[in-house]
């Protein structure tokens, strides 16, 4: 016997108060700027529209050009890659390229598990991701010696992004976990490793933001705090339109 779904509260089953509450929640939507920020975080776009990989017409969701490009991608990308591309809308072309690149990346990189403190619900992973705490933190280096990652955005050729994006993601996940665990020194050390390995990483701005956060996590009135303010000022001056600008300003405001 088929169970029939009950009438939804918003469709009349709820009181006026209940409907008002639910309507307020239903009115909240993500901003287009937030979606673009995700595109930037994936290294697929600046503030403007996304260009197709061939450098031709900018990708437009639903346009014939986009559909043709997606069709071409199907030959090499899996259905899951297509889902990611389609889900992210106007950045679909770039994301499909990204997904294809990830699939082609060396096994050790493409399959690196997230170092976040929770597990993703994929098929049982016999080799669970190494917790951030298991990473032996290197000896703390003087703050002045820690060069910040370039926050000017990905200037390296496409070849660099292809090979290392998955690794960048995992490294920055580990940094976040260390910050969440209250270990900013270890986080800074990991960011130093990141900067050495990715001289112009796709997620360079994300790394710069995390570095500022890690520096501010030290005691106030220390050199770390002063360094954080210097780097934050430089970041905001050089990248005023960055999606990370608000976050950095909030960090500074909280640290006052």
């Amino acid at each position, binding site marked *: 016997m088929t*169970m029939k779904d009950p009438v939804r509260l918003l469709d009349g089953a709820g009181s006026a108060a209940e409907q008002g509450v639910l309507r307020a929640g239903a009115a909240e939507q993500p901003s287009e700027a937030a979606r673009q920020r995700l595109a930037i975080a994936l290294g697929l776009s600046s503030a403007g529209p996304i260009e197709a990989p061939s450098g031709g017409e900018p990708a437009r969701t639903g346009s014939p050009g986009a559909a043709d490009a997606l069709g071409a991608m199907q030959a090499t990308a899996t259905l899951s890659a297509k889902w990611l591309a389609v889900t992210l*809308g106007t950045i679909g072309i770039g994301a499909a390229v990204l997904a294809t690149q990830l699939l082609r990346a060396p096994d050790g990189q493409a399959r690196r598990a997230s170092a976040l403190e929770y597990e993703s619900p994929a098929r049982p992973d016999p080799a669970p991701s190494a917790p951030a705490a298991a990473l032996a933190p290197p000896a703390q280096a003087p703050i002045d010696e820690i060069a910040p990652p370039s926050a000017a955005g990905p200037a390296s050729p496409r070849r660099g992004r292809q090979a290392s994006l998955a690794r960048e993601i995992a490294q920055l996940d580990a940094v976040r976990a260390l910050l969440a665990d209250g270990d900013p020194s270890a986080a800074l050390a990991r960011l130093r490793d990141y900067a050495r390995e990715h001289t112009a990483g796709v997620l360079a701005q994300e790394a710069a933001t995390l570095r500022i956060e890690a520096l501010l996590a030290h005691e106030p009135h220390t050199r770390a705090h002063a360094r954080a303010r210097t780097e934050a000022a430089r970041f905001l001056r050089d990248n005023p339109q960055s999606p990370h600008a608000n976050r950095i300003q909030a960090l500074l405001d909280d640290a006052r």
Partner: protein
Amino acid sequence: MFRADYRFIWRLLRRLGVPQDQVDDATQQVFLIAAERLNDIQPQRERSFAYGTALRLAQTLRRRAQRETPSDACDERPSGWPAPDALTDQRRNCELLDRVLDQLPLELRSVFILYELEALSSPEIAELAEIPLGTVASRLRRARARFKTLVELETATPPGTRGTGA
């Protein structure tokens, strides 16, 4: 459809109690993880994967937020909201919704959100959350009952005395 999953995950995280100023970043994390795990995701199960990841991430972020200074989840005006004149009622309702949903256990809260706010059918919820249809019906029934009681209590209690036991 092409923007549906992004909006879906964003709204899901928001209603699962992720602090307002962290929802964008949390949504980004879900999709970055999905991008990283594309090799492992079964075709046609992408949404389930993203849903499960979002659920776990929301739990983590809520635990972290509870350890830190509590902030007003509705401080920032979300996208698509009306002009300030009409904002007061919606903001109040938004805050009320946050308070009510925070009192639902996660398994009830998630089913309630998917059914009442995302308008998924029970079979769709069962497939997405990988739980039996009967479980969906049971959780929805319990969630709705608690939701009604909590809204009634919230709207009957004068604002100045909420949470004080008065």
